[in-house]
């Protein structure tokens, strides 16, 4: 087994340099906005994520060591295995990410990354602290190990995947060369993913290759006439990292405690974000339907009045 470095630790100096470069460039051109409280919150979340990775990382090691002997094949360390693992990991990332937006238990963890109303390179580092405790890695991280890829190889390519996603958190890069936009996840595609405009909600889940969204019907291009509004449907009123980290967990606990039945409790816990028994809250599905109805009403007021 080769001694693989942790690419994220190696990339941290580059992250710092690129954030400063974007900040200076943004100041000079107005094409990137940084606000100190928001920047501090995002970077503090990034640091906390690193600490939690060290503290809670043992959970991953334990699980993957446990299932490694049950791998279907012994794939080994050939160069092509790295390439294949990278592509398959990105495929798994797509689904893991999609479920992170559609199951509140996992959204409670992932929402942290979406909780800034800014979109710049520091937003890329706004990451959750409690991910291992959601056990999402069991559902989505196990497949490649069970296929027979070495866990260290998967950890390595997953880190490369995350490093790739750093540079796409920027407004300084417009649309890129069409073939690149067609195949790869780009700043333009990922801006859509971070936007709360109803048209853009729950779209573009890709990590590295946008083809997964094209294949599975979740792709939405960025439109010139519809600038992205960043953040979450109910934006946070705090820069406090602890509150940012815990806010959706607190919401789940509060809702589950007030549930009138077991079904309601499960709905609040594992249903889509914004789910409520009577539909009075705003889930993405409800927002999109309301927005669509509004669009139709504006396009053809007579028809809607007649209906």
């Amino acid at each position: 087994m080769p001694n693989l470095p942790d690419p994220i630790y190696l990339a941290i100096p580059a992250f710092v340099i690129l954030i400063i470069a974007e900040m200076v460039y943004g100041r000079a051109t107005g094409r990137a906005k940084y606000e100190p409280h928001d920047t501090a919150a995002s970077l503090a979340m990034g640091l906390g994520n690193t600490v939690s990775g060290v503290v809670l990382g043992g959970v991953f090691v334990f699980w993957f060591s446990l299932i490694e002997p049950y791998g279907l094949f012994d794939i080994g360390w050939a160069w092509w295995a790295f390439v294949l693992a990278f592509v398959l990991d990105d495929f798994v990332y797509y689904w893991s990410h999609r479920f992170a937006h559609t199951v509140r238990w996992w959204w409670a963890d992932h929402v942290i990354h979406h909780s800034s109303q800014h979109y710049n390179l520091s937003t890329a580092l706004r990451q959750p602290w409690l991910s291992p405790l959601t056990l999402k890695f069991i559902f989505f991280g196990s497949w490649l190990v069970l296929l027979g890829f070495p866990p260290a190889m998967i950890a390595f390519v997953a880190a490369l995947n995350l490093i790739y996603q750093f540079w796409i958190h920027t407004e300084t890069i417009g649309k890129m060369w069409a073939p690149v936009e067609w195949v790869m996840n780009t700043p333009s595609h990922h801006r859509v993913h971070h936007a709360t405009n109803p048209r853009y909600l729950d779209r573009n889940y890709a990590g590295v290759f946008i083809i997964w969204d094209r294949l599975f019907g979740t792709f939405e291009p960025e439109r010139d006439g519809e600038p992205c509004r960043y953040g979450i449907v109910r934006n946070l009123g705090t820069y406090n990292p602890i509150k940012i980290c815990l806010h959706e967990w607190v919401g789940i606990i509060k809702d589950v405690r007030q549930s009138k039945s077991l079904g309601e409790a499960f709905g609040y816990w594992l249903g889509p974000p914004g789910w409520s028994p009577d539909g009075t809250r705003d889930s993405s599905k409800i927002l999109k339907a309301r927005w669509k109805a509004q669009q139709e009403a504006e396009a053809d007021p007579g028809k809607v009045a007649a209906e």
Partner: protein
Amino acid sequence: MSDLVVIVTVLGASALAITLIVALNAFMGGWTPARLDDESSIGSRISVDVLGFAPGAHQVLDSDRRAGLVFDQSGERLGLAVCRGDKITVRALRPSDIRAVSVSGADLVLALEDFTFPEATLRLKYAQLAKRWANDIERFGAATQAGMSHAEPA
């Protein structure tokens, strides 16, 4: 170097880097503190974030244009817009979202059932206006809970 030394070095350097980046951000500027233009912008700003929120005519902007309130046309929700940094955070409040409302001089203070947004203070033009709004908000809670609309407060 042991793993522990590496970890402590990385974390220490990261904390220092964060401090320097934020200091640089504050030093360079480049953002404009958000402000609400006028009373009509309260409702229009909330409508952008809260799909279907139809602002009514009963609205108030605080004296430094950093926060505003507006009842929606149905009287079932109270829109709140508060400037934070260079962005505006909004809420479409229902009576159950408001824990308490109080007045201190010309300050109207809303305590909210909201983990990340527990309080909003609006400095209104004069104390009487703050009192009137506090009454309106209390009546909003009582009227809506009783199933009546609060479209236009007395």
